[in-house]
């Protein structure tokens, strides 16, 4: 009897630790971004043109009530992905383009349309990111589409290196640490100038040269020769500016071994 009392006390204490509650239904269902359309097309990759307006249409749904959608445009040339894709970096973007907008929504279904102006002086890869929240605070799985910005108004840069290499970075032997560049730039409105700059791993300039292109539609630099001071990783940049102020960029990494 004595033991039963003791164990009974223990069970009572443990039992009182349990909480029973009726759990009414709560909305934990995420809203859904059904589709993201760019210029009337659905897909992961889109080609858009600098200086033109891009028409974006978003289709969103929720089981109860939508609240907000956030649209964001950010550069994609840094190697990041959004869960899929290679994230490989080829050439850095020309110019900057950022856009962020939060739009209020309501109802179980919403179609949001917006027109985004693509800046005139950019080219490269961007992401259009769409996020949504419902009235309960549930967050949708985001949707991201790739935007390739084409810009025929920018100067076109073509570079021939010596030594040549398809590898990244371009390898040069320390016994002969010399790189030659032959740059050709074409621009319908005329090329204003050309600028070549090489920096080391800590961003110190080890070579730079400016050339006046005299507003020529086609301009060739001739042989530009640079000698690297020591082994290490370098960044070689060629920038071409046209008479309208549009700029294009060519970048190559060089490793001296």
């Amino acid at each position: 009897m004595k033991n039963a009392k003791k164990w009974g006390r223990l069970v009572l204490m443990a039992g009182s630790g349990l909480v029973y509650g009726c759990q009414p239904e709560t909305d934990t269902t995420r809203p859904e971004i059904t589709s993201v359309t760019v210029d009337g097309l659905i897909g992961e990759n889109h080609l858009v043109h600098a200086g033109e307006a891009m028409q974006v249409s978003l289709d969103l749904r929720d089981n109860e009530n939508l609240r907000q959608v956030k649209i964001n445009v950010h550069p994609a040339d840094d190697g990041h992905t959004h869960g899929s894709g290679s994230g490989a970096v080829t050439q850095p973007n020309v110019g900057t383009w950022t856009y962020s907008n939060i739009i209020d929504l309501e109802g179980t279904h919403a179609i949001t349309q917006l027109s985004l102006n693509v800046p005139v002086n950019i080219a490269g890869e961007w992401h259009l990111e769409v996020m949504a929240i419902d009235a309960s605070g549930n967050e949708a799985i985001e949707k991201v589409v790739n935007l390739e910005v084409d810009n025929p108004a920018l100067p076109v840069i073509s570079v021939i290196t010596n030594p040549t290499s398809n590898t990244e970075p371009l390898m040069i032997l320390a016994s002969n640490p010399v790189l030659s560049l032959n740059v050709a730039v074409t621009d319908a409105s005329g090329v204003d100038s050309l600028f070549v700059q090489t920096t080391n791993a800590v961003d110190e300039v080890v070579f730079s040269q400016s050339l006046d292109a005299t507003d020529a539609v086609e301009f060739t630099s001739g042989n530009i020769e640079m000698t690297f001071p020591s082994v290490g990783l370098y960044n070689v940049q060629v920038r071409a500016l046209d008479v309208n102020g549009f700029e294009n960029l060519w970048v190559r990494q060089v490793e001296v071994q």
Partner: protein
Amino acid sequence: MKKILGICCSLWWGQLDAQNSDTTGVLDSDSLHPLEHLVISDSWIGTTDRKSSIDVTLINPEDWRSNRALSFAQSLTFLPGVSAQNTGVGIARPVIRGMSGQRIVVIERNVKQEGQQWGSDHGLELDMFTVDAVEVLKGAVGLMYGGDAIGGAIRILSPRWSTGKWDSRLQVLGSDNNQERSIGFSHQQKWKGKKGGYVQRVFVAIQTKKSSDYRLPADSFTYLNRTLPLNQGVLNNTAIDEQSALCLWEMIHGYRQLHHLTFQYRWFDQNSGLFPGLVGIPTLASVTSDGNFRNIGMPNAHVNHHKWILQAEGRWGNVSHALELALQINNRIEKSIPHQGPYQILDGGDEALSLDLRDVQGRYTVSHIHWEASQFEVGTSFQKQWNSRGGFEFLIPDFQKNATGTWVIWNRPLIKHSGQWNGGMRWDYASYQMKGLSQWISNNGADMLWQPAIGVNKMFQGISGSVGQSISTSNDWHWKWHVGRTLRVPQASELFVNGVHHGTFRHEQGDQNLTTERGWQWDGMAIKTHQDWVMKCSPFVQYYNSYIYLSPQATFSYLPDGGQLYAYVQHPVWMAGGECSLDKHWLPQLHSDVSVEYIYNYNTATTLPLPFTPPLQLKWGSTYTHQWSSRWEWNCQFQVRYVAAKNRVDRNEQSTTDYSLLHGGMSLEYHGKDERWSCLWTLNARNLTNVKYMNNLSNYRVLQLPEQGRWIQIGIEFKWHGQK
């Protein structure tokens, strides 16, 4: 092994051994030893406070050493009901029964450790070398330490007294994975007064620790919905450089009446790299290693903490008086490159966030006031804080806080059984004076005045109380229960925070309209002892009318590097659960312990659980100790920890799958002639099977980053003792 069931007032780290010739008869004073431990077995399961209805677990230096982990908080996680909230490796804060930060206080000499503990990524400014032993108090201990202790308290115990005239200790540790190297040295010198009237000591300990970028079993991470690769699993720029020191002068005078005077200074300095992928918008360039794993580049966080404590205790007649005065200076500076984006702070410089906290505390108690069979303690405390901010980011504003509390605690022996009634009431008052802030930012190229904080004054006050029993119904059963009405004053961050907190990866927003957090708590405990085993069960039930927590909102942050907005809200919440432990001695040299812990919580407003709730855990460990001779002693131990899947989660919180971890350790100790010196070799290993797992309490879980893999630490420790 014969168990000892009795009163062991002398368990205060050999203090009586040290002074039994000069202060015997007065050193068993409760004022020096606020918790008298009922020792049932020689493991931590069998320790509690026989007089208090609070559940207290004592971790002695041996347990502390053999469970050494990467941080102070992680070293406590072998205890049931205790977890750690990690931010990477080496930075963690303790979690007791699912509560942490503003609900758990760390107490040293009755002084609350005060830093920027509101940030769940901010670690505890304490190292492991200068801490000798700790006590973990579970449940509501707000009566003693104020509302900030409604989840429990961790009490740092004073370093044990030297048994001789002096002793010294040198410890060198090294670990793989993050290449941690540490060296610590301590020395104490003891003097006895004439006729044994007093004894005093000086204790000095210093430690330095460095670790490199650490590796994870992962090849990518995701932040702000962007996935980036991790080269060889290395988290770039996560090296840590840490120094700490403890200086202590202590005098006990017991010729006629006991007087105890202590002056202590503690210093902690930590410079840690912050993984660049988590600050601002992550880019591949920022997370690529610079090839140097030991350097601390940008971004980084520097924490500097100073703590001075003056403690005086004395007994006149039957009444004890105690006074504690403390000053703490906590400085946290985070540096990073200003973020690019549509919104940009126009101030230059690389100081992203500077938080400078000055804290002054005082506490005066009068105890052992007898009235008939009852005994009373009355006390009052005050606290004054000044917080100033700087940098181009904003999280919490400049503010001043004034707080005071007055309490009375009552104890009365039971009539029928051996045991005590405990109870008490406390009145707390706190006020904030917050300064507003306006800052110019560039919004898509246009200058804009941004006002993240407006100036406001807030005041809170209220009464809390509790009552409980501690009963020994027989030689082998001991019971406790404790019920309390709790009150917690909202912290400055809960009221005023507004900005992207990079440590938690979200825009956090306070609410100035929050009221005090009120609740009811019931804790129970039962200990059953047997010839060679001891069992302990500690259930609890809690209800909060107005529980404050960070909740996801139905709105996005307007800041470029902020996703969904998280705001502090108050909801009614139920919590229940408990811990059960069993300790069995198979042989005199071999014992095992097994424990299970579970927490259930329920937010009645959302009908969902609270975020960051620890899952069900089972812990099983065994220790084998063998003494070859009077000189050689060998110890081997392991612990298996099973953590259940966590699928019952808050809104937008990610679930985690179950996992099992194996930890182990060995030590070998050699005692020199006449016990004048000893040498101890240790080997500690965690996650021996290199399991890749997600910890639902880790801040990095939201980045899809697993916890650290296998971690092995070796150490050697020399001790020298002076003559008795």
